[in-house]
């Protein structure tokens, strides 16, 4: 298929003003969505989004665009399902063709324990009002005929969880939809503007220092994904995060073969076929901390081996392009969204490999948090304090595919 045209006008490129009510650091999906909901829901329009490079050029441009809400724990279900519901109305809301396509996602199980964990998650999802079902290998085959469900492979597919409302969207379109709409409501989108310092007085944030000068700010929201630790350190705030390279890749354009999204934690691969026909794939993170936006190629090679185990027909598809983003991984594979010890400074980070799907949900909740100086009920569990109390939301285990 052909992608829809972008509109004739998106945004302009203003000089930063001396002062804003709210400054959002990070012009990725989360930052743009936060600015949009601040303006739209809370009427706060004297807002700047500061982006050190080009808008939505970080993880937003680099992710594999999987959207789902089938997480294990109630806390996660809350925010991801909130997000999924917003996705369902987002095209109309933004007036932008974001190509949200609810083609479903299969999370494969390859061991008996995978099966137990998967069924547990399906049951939890259903009681939380999230569409989910357990499908056996034959059911997997019916949903995605190219998956190899033969028992004669190294790690046979024993079944899968299926969330029909899950899917994909076109990442640039989503980001640009938010950016255009935010801009139209008066938000300044300031690119090539790197934050170099955070200024505080009396325990409150007062301004941000940038490569384009000092910008006074009543409130500041950090939406910088992989760079969150570096920003927080500017006010002496330490975060339980490690920034890792996460690689992804695409093939050339192919006739449609893959109607859904398939994720496998056990063999480490997730695959969809994007609208134009390219296979889009991701894998596990590179093990080490890194801000280099590049990973090691053996990760890609392992991922290819895993992909061919599941999808033998991909053998002669071709790798066209690889890239890497920087993901900020938290100890419990759940985000940190909320207040900080610094007045007027708010934190949105720790989304690890799963931030894209949360874009509308966290944008809405983070805007609420900033506007009310109080977390939205959906992000209330995701405090920084949970690492002290031990009230973690551990999504490593049963919902181990943390993407």
């Amino acid at each position: 298929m052909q992608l829809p045209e972008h509109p004739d006008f998106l945004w302009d490129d203003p000089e930063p003003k001396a002062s804003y009510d709210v400054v959002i650091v990070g012009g990725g999906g989360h930052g743009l969505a936060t600015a949009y909901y601040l303006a739209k829901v809370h009427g706060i329009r004297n807002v700047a989004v500061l982006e050190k490079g080009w808008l939505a050029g970080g993880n937003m441009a680099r992710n594999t665009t999987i959207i789902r809400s089938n997480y294990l724990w109630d806390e996660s279900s809350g925010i991801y399902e909130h997000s999924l519901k917003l996705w369902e109305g987002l095209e109309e809301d933004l007036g932008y063709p974001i190509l949200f396509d609810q083609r479903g996602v299969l999370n494969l199980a390859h061991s008996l324990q995978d099966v137990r964990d998967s069924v547990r998650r399906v049951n939890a999802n259903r009681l939380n009002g999230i569409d989910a079902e357990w499908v056996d290998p034959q059911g997997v085959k019916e949903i995605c005929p190219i998956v190899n469900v033969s028992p004669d492979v190294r790690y046979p597919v024993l079944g899968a969880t299926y969330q029909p409302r899950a899917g994909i969207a076109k990442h640039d379109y989503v980001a640009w939809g938010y950016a255009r709409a935010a801009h139209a409501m008066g938000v300044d989108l300031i690119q090539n503007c790197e934050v170099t310092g955070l200024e505080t007085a009396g325990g409150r944030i007062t301004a941000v220092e940038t490569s384009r000068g000092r910008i006074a700010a009543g409130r500041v929201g950090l939406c910088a994904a992989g760079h969150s630790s570096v920003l927080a350190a500017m006010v002496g705030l330490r975060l339980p995060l490690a920034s890792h390279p996460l690689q992804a890749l695409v093939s050339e354009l192919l006739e449609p073969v893959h109607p859904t999204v398939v994720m496998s934690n056990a063999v480490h691969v997730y695959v969809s076929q994007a609208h134009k026909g390219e296979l889009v794939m991701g894998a596990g993170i590179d093990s080490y901390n890194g801000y280099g936006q590049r990973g090691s190629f053996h990760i890609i090679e392992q991922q290819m081996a895993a992909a061919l185990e599941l999808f033998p027909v991909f053998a002669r598809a071709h790798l066209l392009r690889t890239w890497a983003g920087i993901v900020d991984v938290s100890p419990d594979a759940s985000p940190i969204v909320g207040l900080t010890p610094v007045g007027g400074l708010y934190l949105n980070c720790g989304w690890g490999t799963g931030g894209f799907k949360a874009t509308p949900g966290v944008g809405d909740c983070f805007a609420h948090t900033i506007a009310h100086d109080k977390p939205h009920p959906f992000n209330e569990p995701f405090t920084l304090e949970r690492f002290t109390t031990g009230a973690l939301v551990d999504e490593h285990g049963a919902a181990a595919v943390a993407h």
Partner: protein
Amino acid sequence: MNFRTPTGGTIDRNTLLHFTFNGEGFTGHSGDTLASALLAHGVHEIGSSVKFGRPRGIVAAGSEDPTSLVQIETPFPEPMLLATTVELYEGLEARGLAGQGRLASISDPARYDAKHEHCDVLVVGAGPAGLVAALTAARSGARVVLVDEQNQAGGALLGVDEYLDDRPSASWVADIVAELKSTPGVLVLERTTAFGMYQDGFVLALQKRTDHLGFAAPASVARQRVWRIRTKQTVLTTGAHERPVVFPDNDRPGIMLASAARTFLHRYGVLVGSRAVVFTTNDSAYCAAINLAESGVDVPLIVDARPEAPARLATECAARGIEVRAGQVVTGTEGEGRVTGVHVAGATVACDTLLVSGGWNPVVSLFSQARGKLRYDAELGAFVPGEELGSVRVAGSATGELDLASCVRQGREAGSAAVVAAGFSSRGQVPLPVSDSRCTSRSGLVLWRVPGDEDTSFVDLQRDATVSDVLRATGAGLRSLEHIKRYTTIGTAHDQGKTSGMIAAGIVAEALGVEPADQRPTTFRPPYTSVSFAALAGRDRGALHDPVRVTAIHPWHVAHGALFENVGQWKRPWYYPQPGEDLHTAVLRECRAARSGVAMMDGSTLGKIDVQGSDAGKFLDMLYTNMMSTLKVGRIRYGVMCGVDGMVIDDGTVIRVGEERYLVTTTTGNAAKILDWMEEWLQTEWPHLDVHCTSVTDHWATIPLVGPKSRDVLAAVAPDLDVSNEAFEFMTWRDTQVAGVPARVCRISFSGELAYEINVTAWHGLAVWETLMAAGAPFGITPYGTETMHVLRAEKGYPIIGQETDATVTPHDLGMSWAVSKKKPDFIGKRSFARAENQRADRKQLVGLLPVDPSVLLPEGAQIISSDHLPEPPVRMLGHVTSSYPSAALGRTFALALVRSGHSRIGETLYVPVSDALVPVTVTDSVLYDKEGTRRDG
């Protein structure tokens, strides 16, 4: 029509190859590409464009071609190859594509592999600069690898008719290649594309080993090979790609790069048309015009965008009847399908071919991947390497230097510098050849596009992206090239913008009124050209995807019909169905045997770590929640390990073998992880401790012998052992002989029954197993698998780590406070127990669940609620079912579950939603069988 020249080229005119394209039969020669063979028949039109369905032809002669996408059908379907890079073979079937390829629906039978290569100097590109660089390095004694994507060396020389040192350039090339190939320590790889450049001299290259053989490819040879090259020094002689100029209707078949026409002529003996107009901004296209004219093509006109034509070349053209018009441009073309005329100065010039040259783009992809900064060369109108890198050198036209003499001089300098940097003295004296070239390429005019109909002025021919798309993008407020690339999709197609990227940058700069130098070029990302998934997967597929581990007794299990479960990398017997049995009936039978007679299983996969040293006890006291240092030699203790966060990570028994020696067992799946965990603490935190850990998992075969009759069976095979309860107490071990071989027998039980764990060296495992089976036959000994093991332990409330736990469960939650020392000042995880969350009364705790209807089996993974009707979501969940089985011993079903405040809910009725029903269950203690422990002593 035959467009093959009577002589010339490197094709083998004695071979005749038959192929089909879009269903029509053609012939070609060995040495042809699919593109050259089609052009030889006058076929320019290959496919159609993805968006507008406009015909697409052949623009370039090599891997930079943006348009000649084909689907190969034989011998095996492969999508999205370029006709310009498919070597012709007998029986080739191909068809042109409209943007999307098609995957085969069957598995690829070909093999793929990878090979590691280490060298001092890697040279990428066997053009003139690369050949000189490689020879310089080789003559200095360095280990050299020379890779080139083509099937023959020569690079740009393959497409020209120049003489070097008064002989055909091919002869100069052949001599160098021959010397390189005969020099020890030098590896010349043809058909090999360096596609990725990583840190520390790591370069990945794809070699196409059998594709050109078609049906004749031997099945025993890997079709493609990934070379993982680790080099000290790299010389990039990757050349330059000619770029076109954009003008209205510049996309018709028959419009191609001038250098491509030269290559098709000189390398393949193919004339790209009958009547060719040339449109250029520089000198190099004049040579194409002259060459074609000399070969019989009617070349009426050269349109040179520069104000003045080069005098000498213009004179040569005049002598051949070629009109040269300076200061003019092509403003459009016409034709249904193939071009039939070009518009110049308001007039139409009839032609069937338009050759275009807009200058040259150095191929800097690998340099950029190596994190080299690029610099905009305004004279060239292209990005060139902008800095020196320590171990990566660039030479030849990849630097933007287009004159042959300079290229080979740079090649020699780079080769020489590379060997010196690699620790050799540069002894390689390579004389530089003298060229008779008439054309230099440097003196160009930078011209991105000719004004005109922007809707038909194509920037990216594969994506159908036009000048108007670019202008819409800048008009929409976009400034960054990355944004414009995404808005227009320019540069994102199969060719990754090799010929279009620079032009797009130039047009954007013009539109924004800035210099291209002011823009950050879009990032070059691996791979340089596309690489098949299968090549990257290599041999790591099927059984080799992840090693399969099997025990010494595995053949017996296979022979006796066991079904297997993957546990980590291990294959473990799951259950042993007899004819007509399903999982449940087999497991009930196996359980009955264990509880009423005797049964045994293969427990060899259990992790075993030998922990030795004078501080071994102290060390284990830190790792386990309970005390291990007080364990007496000869005795065994069960222990639990937590992470620093206080959550259970593993459990198992610890045997005290001697004063300074313990044998620790771990769960099957965690064996390696726990050894690593131990080493990490020992090496990084407590290096002062005298402790050594060794994995002995594979050294032992371990056979739990379980059931009331196990003592009788053991007595029969271990005559030296006093098996009486008094002499051989629970939780002790003895070294003895079992079945005539040395054995260690432990009196431990994971079932609650009288049980022995017999350990022998793996070497004897199968024999001992068979002896036990024979000795147990009178007692009806029954082999059992992991499922029965799970049922037996669950009846006793013993948790399985990873099944009852999920990284959120403490020993207290499991009801194992008895295994948590209150005496020890510290152990790993202890401090975390004091956190607020751990103190909550409503933590999830392990309990038993008995469905009120004893025949109802709860699904594992079911959730638990307190309400007897299902409220609207979100429903508050109290926990979930971790294990659930029918029990022969209990005569009913039962389950284990983690339930909020579970320990204080004993006796309560809760509800488990199953499909649309709610199953009432009674909460019980987790120990459901033989609570008093009367059975363990037999």
